[in-house]
């Protein structure tokens, strides 16, 4: 009886493992995010009030609301499957980390899944308060003195949450909480990649903090790699 039970368990585990390892064989969506028009110039940040941070920069840190690359590419755009994929039953067990270093959030936009562990760390010699201005999820506001353990939190509903530090008003970042495991944030060259998509018809959404959202449909069959590009309209102010 005992043996039978453990056998069943092993078989179940193997089946799951098979499914999981089989999944990577799906299709991939890659693309590039660009803009047209004239975006606002990044502005230098004056950290005079916090000398321990200011001295870490030889040239001032610039604002990151709109970060562009050569060829009109746009960084920090969250691209994710907003419809078509089944809702994830469980969040990944790995935690994502949001670091505060030099009075600056790294990364500027952090995407993670609903119910996934979020760790906020403070690498500075000064206290920060992490204040994600959630509207759908529960809002919290916690200080983190230097040298204290990371703050652990979770979000149980999808939302784009603006994150600020009241002590250092220039600090600003975003949590992109999504309910799918298929998401990416465009990199310095505006590129993103969503691998491992099983065949199906999907709605792809791209979100930018200043320029809003765009969607497009994409159909995946087999192991193909499809391309989907987004173009945002930039405004000078």
């Amino acid at each position, binding site marked *: 009886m005992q043996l039978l039970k453990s056998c069943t368990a092993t078989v179940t585990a193997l089946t799951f493992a098979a499914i999981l390892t089989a999944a990577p064989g799906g299709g991939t969506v890659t693309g590039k995010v660009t803009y047209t028009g004239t975006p606002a110039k990044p502005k230098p940040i004056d950290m005079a009030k916090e000398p321990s941070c200011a001295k870490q920069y030889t040239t001032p840190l610039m604002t990151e609301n709109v970060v562009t690359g050569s060829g009109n590419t746009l960084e920090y755009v969250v691209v994710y499957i907003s419809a078509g994929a089944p809702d994830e039953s469980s969040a990944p067990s790995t935690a994502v980390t949001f670091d505060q270093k030099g009075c600056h959030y790294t990364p500027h936009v952090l995407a993670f899944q609903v119910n996934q562990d979020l760790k906020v760390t403070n690498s500075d010699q*000064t*206290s920060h*308060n992490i*204040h994600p*201005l959630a509207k759908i999820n529960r*809002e919290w*506001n*916690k*200080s*983190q*003195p*230097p*040298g*204290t*353990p990371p*703050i652990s939190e979770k979000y149980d509903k999808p939302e784009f949450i*603006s994150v*600020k530090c*009241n*002590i250092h008003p220039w600090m600003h970042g975003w949590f992109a909480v999504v309910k799918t495991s298929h998401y990416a944030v465009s990199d310095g060259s505006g590129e993103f990649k969503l691998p491992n998509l099983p065949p199906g018809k999907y709605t792809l959404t791209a979100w930018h903090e200043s320029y809003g959202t765009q969607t497009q449909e994409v159909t995946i069959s087999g192991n193909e790699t499809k391309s989907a590009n987004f173009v945002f309209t930039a405004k000078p102010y």
Partner: protein
Amino acid sequence: MSDASAPVAHQHAAPTGLLRKYVFSLDHKMIGKQYYGLALVSVFLGMILSWLMRFHLVWTNAAIPGLRLLSKNGAPGGVMTPEYYLSLLTMHGTLMVFFVLTNAPFAGFGNYFLPIQIGAEDMAFPRFNMMSFWVTFVAFLVLIASFFIPDGPPISGWTAYAPLSAVGKDAGPGLAWGQNLWAISIGLFCVGQLLGSLNFIATTLDLRTKGMTLSRLPISTWAWFITSCIGLLAFAVLLPACVLLILDRVAGTSFFIPAGLVISDHLQPHSGGSPLLWQHLFWFFGHPEVYIAIVPAMGIVSHILMASMRKPLLSVKVVYGSMIAIGFLSYMVWGHHMFLSGMNPFSALVFSFPTLIITIPATIITMIWIGSIYGANLRFHTPALFSLGFVSVFVAGGVSGFFLAQPSLDIYLHGTYFVVGHFHMVMGVAAIFGILAGTYFWFPKMSGRMMNDTLGKIHFWLTFIGVYCIFMPFHFLGFAGNVRRYSTFVDDYLQPLLPLHKFISIAAFLTGAAQLIFLYNLIYSRFKGAPAPENPWEATSLEWSTTSPPPFDNFGGRHVVVKRGPNEYGVDGAHGDFIMQDSPEPEPAAGD
């Protein structure tokens, strides 16, 4: 309510049930002890909070053992966060000002001794009296509850300046439910104090025993009576302020919140309110509150000083007059707390003048105390020491008040530790010395046992030296421009001041630890102290002509008849150099 017209409760036997005797007691003596006990719990709680704050100020990034258990969010890994420091600051101030400085010298001792000193069997409205304590107790529980909610206690200080206190969670942790609990607690506290003051006034006016004319009232009763008049009007103003604050917070009104505020990126949905309105209402209460704390202590100390000096004060009538003047003027000076609030310079002048005037009666009283010591036969028992210590710290705290009364100097000193030093000296330490003097003086009467005098003296010297070590340097910090209410000193110009802060912190730990001697003495003497005689201090007022402790109806069915004033010291009495107020012996010639 239903008992409003029944002045006397004690014509039947004392209650025997535990609940009626110790909890929902109608007996003013038990209610007085309950107030005192609540103040005792609050003062040690407040002191522990001040320890935590002083520790954090000088060892900012060090973990405090056990703090993590108190608050997970407030002390991640045991290191205090800036907001938790402010939470503790708020709770320290609120506990000390309301639940200690108002409760102990006024409601505590006043409840116990005012009826006895006027020869009454109880307060005028025993049911109101009981309600007053239990409402205050609920206020205490509501306040303490804020420690146990996730966001913690409010961070807006004991003055709860709007709009910080009015806008809610956007402005920081503790400003959601923590601030609600604070406002509810203070509102309830006002109700409790209003009931108490009403009782004190009616009792003093109507229940004096035969022969107890107003001029024969002991000076402590005078002080309680004046204080209840101040408190009645002051708390009657704070209560509406709390009501309006709560409405702004929960009902979306805009009494204190102006338009166009953006807090944590959130445009507040309010319009047109006036933050200065809160300041006016609060300080209209707040300044009289200083005298609610200090006038009873003045009365207690005068009372004890006469018994220790074995002579009356130079002029008791002048002290009465000065206390009344202080009470009256305290309603005209609230604006001096707002010199920096954008009042026009003319109003600053208007408020500066009575502020300087109000120092005159306080100075008169102080000079009378000091002048009366000339030619006295001082008995240096513990209550006397604390009374003399009171005079000393009151002078120290009063003198610094001269600086702050002048707008041009206040502009430099207002936001600094100078103010912290000033009000801790004149309001905190002085009133606490009054409470301690009263405790050592009246403990025999309240418990029937003497407190240990040697321990008492050790306690006095450690405390007396300790408070000067703590609060004098605060003034120096103030001159150096050290800003108060900072949880960490990050400014460049504050760095050279850190050693002085370290000195203050260590002095605070030691002085606080010395209070454990008092606590031990209190508990030990309650059960093991030497039995107290009826009149251990050879004092004259009526509480000393009944047993220790007094019977349920205070005088064991005896109808006390008062023959003379309360200050018959330094005379040729039948039992020594004093004559009791109710003593039937004839008036002797005064012999100094």
